[in-house]
């Protein structure tokens, strides 16, 4: 397995399977872990970071879940490859920048990704398709147990797992769900939703494409606090809140279909028509049109289009993916051409 072989497979989080996958794209849990007594990556000198990297690397190679996995040192990657991993959510933006001795380990089907020397020594992440935090938690907990047999984690009975930033201390856990909420956006109710959930200890953020262009009505919801509640309770709270958002979105979709059927049909079919017939298209426009088409597949308005195909297009039309597919560097103009071509092909 090498980096380029990722291109041929669908990321776990984009499969379009799993519970409520018509609204919940994916579930993700990450745990922040550090080694006792070593300086945190931002404060450590190169020698120390190197030592941590090799210690953790040795431990990781003995874990069964990571057999046949891919180990990549960030220093050895081109800017394009880093961007490619970022688009696939396998590394964070922070991991693509700056300091040396950073690395990432990716499991065979891209279910697990572990960043080394990011903000913390280890950032363990597990992805699942659809609304499925419970499986993600089971797997990451098991993985964490195996790692703690081999690594001396920084832990205090009072403050839990010690992290570089005090906002992660305690469980070190951030659970998140990525949702597609076109109906709540169209009916302008998203504002109320976002305002309400911020009072319930949940953070929401929009998902972005290129630059500042808003993309596709995607929102990510995650727990804000990490201390004072156990992992199951944190997950449970997030699930309950998001469950309600899913229900709202579902209701809004139904009522849009009832009250403004023609307007909805018009928007969805036009979006589909433009995507199928473009020769030059920006990433921003692609995102918002794909969002409509995605809604159309769920409402059975576009019967021949598969959810998975649309999910994949969201990823494949990103700049680094386009360039990887083409096998060379493309400027913005060339990307817009290539993007249109790829979409035409895939939707034929």
């Amino acid at each position, binding site marked *: 397995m090498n980096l380029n072989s990722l291109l041929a497979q669908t990321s776990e989080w984009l499969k379009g399977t799993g519970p409520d996958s018509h609204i919940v794209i994916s579930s993700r849990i*990450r745990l922040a872990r*550090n080694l*006792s*007594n*070593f*300086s*945190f990556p*931002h*404060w450590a000198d190169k020698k120390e970071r190197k030592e941590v990297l090799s210690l953790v690397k040795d431990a990781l190679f003995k874990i069964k879940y990571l057999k046949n996995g891919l180990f990549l040192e960030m220093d050895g990657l081109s800017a394009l490859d880093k961007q490619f991993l970022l688009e696939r*959510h396998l590394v*964070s*933006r*922070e991991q693509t920048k700056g300091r040396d001795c950073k690395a990432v380990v990716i499991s065979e089907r891209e279910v697990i990704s572990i960043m080394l020397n990011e*903000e913390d020594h280890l*950032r363990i992440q597990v992805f699942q398709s659809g609304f499925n935090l419970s499986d993600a938690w089971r797997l990451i*907990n098991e993985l*964490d*147990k195996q790692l*703690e*047999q081999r690594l001396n*984690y*920084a*832990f*205090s*009975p*009072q*403050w*839990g*797992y*010690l992290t*570089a*930033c*005090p*906002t*992660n*201390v*305690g*469980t070190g856990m*951030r659970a998140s769900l990525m949702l597609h909420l076109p109906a709540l956006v169209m009916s302008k109710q998203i*504002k109320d939703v*976002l*305002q309400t959930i*911020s*009072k319930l200890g949940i*953070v*929401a*953020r*929009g998902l*972005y494409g290129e630059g*500042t262009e*808003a993309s596709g009505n995607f929102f990510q919801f*995650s727990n804000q*606090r990490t*201390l*004072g*509640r*156990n*992992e199951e*309770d*944190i997950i449970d709270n997030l699930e309950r809140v998001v469950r309600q958002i899913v229900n709202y979105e579902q209701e809004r979709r139904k009522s849009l279909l009832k009250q403004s059927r023609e307007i909805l049909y018009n928007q969805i079919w036009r979006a589909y028509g433009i995507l199928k017939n473009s020769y030059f298209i920006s990433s921003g426009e692609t995102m918002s049109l794909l969002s409509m088409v995605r809604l159309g597949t769920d409402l059975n308005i576009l019967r021949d289009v598969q959810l998975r195909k649309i999910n994949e297009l969201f990823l494949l039309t990103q700049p680094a993916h386009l360039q990887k597919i083409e096998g060379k560097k493309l400027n913005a103009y060339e990307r817009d051409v290539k993007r249109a071509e790829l979409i035409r092909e895939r939707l034929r």
Partner: protein
Amino acid sequence: MLCDICQKNIASVHITEIVNEKMVELHLCEQCAQEKGIGLSEDFSLANFLAGLTDFDLPRVKESVELQCPNCGMSYEDFKKIGRLGCSQCYYTFKQSLAPLLKRIQGAEQHIGKFPHYADKGMREKVEIEELQRELSKAIQEENFEQAAKLRDKIREIKSKMKKSEE
């Protein structure tokens, strides 16, 4: 919803922060968020707000200003600037100032979740019982006796489990 700062772009970064027991909400567009240094990295964190928060509880802070972590050399001044600690030992070095800060940003002072296997075996239960006892006295104060009874039973349950595992 428009961005609180520029009032032009759609807000997409939503932050809730507890400052002095009061909830402060911020809704920013991506540009303003980035300008304010709130990165839109994978795990959007409140680290960048920390610098501002560390100045509360001045008397306590004063004591630790002079302190320097013996393990990694970070001073409290460094922490205030960076918003991140230097190593795991810093948590003990700056404990006095960190405790109120953690309470403020996390709303809690005690870890409740999982423990690594090598941590003291009874520790987890002890911590759990302490937390439950705090809740219990609060429930009694509020005369919420139904809740209090539930908590009492829970404490008993954990204690009897501990006894069994000792035997």
